């Protein structure tokens, strides 16, 4: 065995990677330089040239020492320590043999047997170390494998992450699109709602028209007839005066005065009806004003009755208003509250009339539909009740009646918006309450509470 060979082998392995451990490029260069030197020295030593070859052998010793020293001391080459230790005894024995031979051949000869057995042990040692190192290397390689797998896993995870991010982005775009569509749909629904509310107002105005016509007809009838009769009375007064009946003439004149007052009263009545109609058709400006609730309730009760009466000639019902005269004016939007009253009263007449029809079919003919409106001044404001003696509302649907589009009327007869609009007007518009009490087959009573001091 030649030391030069050993050095070449050591250097070759030093620059190779071991498991996951890589030697830096700088060290690789240095080690490769070392290999070149070792190669040259080996060649020179083999050539066996006079003094030069033994010198190369000596330099090999020095190179070996440097390799051993550098490998053991340098942290970057620590992983090859095992290899160095494996070869170290063999190298040491070679050095010792060579030095002993140089000093004296006789001494070498007498010690040769020891060198041989030491060499044997050294080889044994190297083998054990080699096995040991191999194990270590394999463990390291396993680690490298694991690391590689981990890296692979990491790459897969990364890929998944990228894919997920892409999917999330796609989903986000989709959701944004859906959201925009929903916002658009909501806007459309809001527009439709506004239209429906308008339609509901117009429908109730249509119901009102006939009632209004009738209600205007009555005062106009008086205005015409009272002015007509007044003309006649003037003629009569003239006649009486001519025939000297002064007392008679004075009586006629006082009649004339009260006639003119009546004309005024009925003119104003027609005026207020027209104003009420305008108020009803106008979209709510939300303007609250001090309102005589008694007058408002009376007006709408009549409008409702005559409206229904005009639409359906067979319709007949009793209606009554009981007002609390201590009631002061309350700040409300008159058109809105009027609409609520009209709606509740219309419903009342409708329910009572339905009951009448049902009873008529059973042969009972003495039922008289009735709607009673009452006002009552309370500490906090006003309570208005609208009570009918109709079919009543089943307990099961009492909590649904204020929902938009809920209706028990046949298709086409009701929009299902009347009560929900009424509810909004009272609760949202006037900070009040709208409640219902009912006993099936006996009565339904709606109670409106509107607080005062609401500006």
């Amino acid at each position: 065995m030649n030391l030069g060979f050993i050095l070449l082998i050591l250097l070759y392995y030093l620059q190779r990677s071991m498991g996951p451990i890589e030697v830096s490029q700088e060290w690789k260069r240095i080690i490769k330089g070392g290999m070149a030197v070792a190669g040259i020295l080996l060649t020179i030593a083999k050539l066996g040239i006079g003094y030069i070859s033994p010198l190369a052998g000596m330099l090999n010793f020095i190179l070996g020492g440097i390799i051993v020293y550098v490998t053991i001391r340098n942290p970057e080459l620590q992983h090859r320590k095992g290899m160095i230790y494996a070869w170290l005894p063999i190298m040491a024995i070679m050095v010792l043999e060579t030095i002993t031979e140089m000093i004296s051949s006789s001494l070498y000869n007498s010690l040769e047997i020891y060198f041989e057995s030491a060499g044997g042990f050294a080889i044994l040692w190297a083998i054990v170390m080699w096995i040991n190192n191999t194990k270590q290397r394999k463990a390291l390689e396993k680690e490298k494998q694991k690391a590689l797998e981990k890296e692979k896993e990491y790459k897969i995870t990364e890929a998944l992450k990228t894919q997920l991010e892409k999917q999330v982005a796609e989903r986000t775009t989709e959701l944004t699109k859906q959201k925009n569509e929903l916002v658009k749909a909501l806007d459309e629904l809001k527009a439709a709602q506004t239209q429906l509310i308008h339609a509901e107002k117009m429908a109730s105005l249509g119901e009102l028209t006939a009632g209004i016509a009738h209600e205007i007809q009555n005062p106009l009838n008086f205005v015409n007839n009272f002015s007509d009769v007044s003309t006649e009375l003037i003629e009569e007064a003239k006649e009486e005066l001519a025939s000297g009946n002064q007392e008679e003439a004075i009586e006629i004149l006082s009649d004339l005065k009260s006639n003119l007052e009546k004309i005024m009263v009925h003119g104003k009545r027609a005026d207020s009806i027209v104003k009420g109609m305008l108020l009803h058709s106008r979209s709510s400006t939300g303007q609250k004003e001090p309102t005589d609730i008694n007058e408002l309730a009376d007006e709408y009760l009549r409008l409702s009755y005559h409206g229904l009466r005009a639409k359906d000639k067979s319709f007949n019902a009793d209606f009554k208003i009981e007002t609390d005269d201590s009631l002061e004016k309350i700040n409300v939007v008159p058109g809105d509250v009027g609409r609520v009253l009209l709606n509740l009263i219309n419903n009342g007449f409708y329910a009572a009339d339905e009951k009448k029809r049902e009873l008529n079919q059973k042969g009972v003919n003495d039922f008289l539909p009735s709607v009673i409106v009452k006002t009552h001044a309370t500490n906090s404001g006003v309570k208005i009740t609208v009570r009918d003696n109709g079919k009543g509302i089943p307990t099961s649907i009492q909590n649904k009646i204020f929902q938009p589009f809920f209706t028990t009327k046949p298709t086409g007869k009701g929009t299902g918006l009347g009560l929900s609009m009424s509810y909004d007007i009272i609760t949202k518009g006037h900070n009040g309450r709208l409640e219902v009490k009912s006993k099936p087959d006996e009565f339904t009573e709606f109670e409106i509470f509107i607080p005062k001091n609401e500006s």
Partner: protein
Amino acid sequence: MKILIVDDEKDVEMLFRQKFRKEVKSGMLELAFAFSGEEALQVLGSEHPPKVVYVFSDINMPGMNGLELLENIKQQFPHIQVSMISAYGDLQNYEKAMESGAKEFFTKPIDFTTLKAEVNKLIERHN
């Protein structure tokens, strides 16, 4: 001769009293008023036999309406004549009234010329 006017509008009384001022003053005509169908039947039932010979009734009144009153009067007092006065001058009401035995059908606003003519005819016949 006594006639009864039925209308839920109270001012009707004043109007009729002035319109028939001369007739009432001269004692040829007596006017009675009722403000609902129920009240009208009470008035008619309070006298035996009722002095009222003619009833003018509004159709559209709360409670018992004019057409129901007409039927009731025709049942209880067949000899009393009844004419209707209505703001709803539609065929349906007219036919119903005529079927039930109404004499005339006046529409609002009341044309007192024709109404007076009807009353005068009555007075002439009565006297």
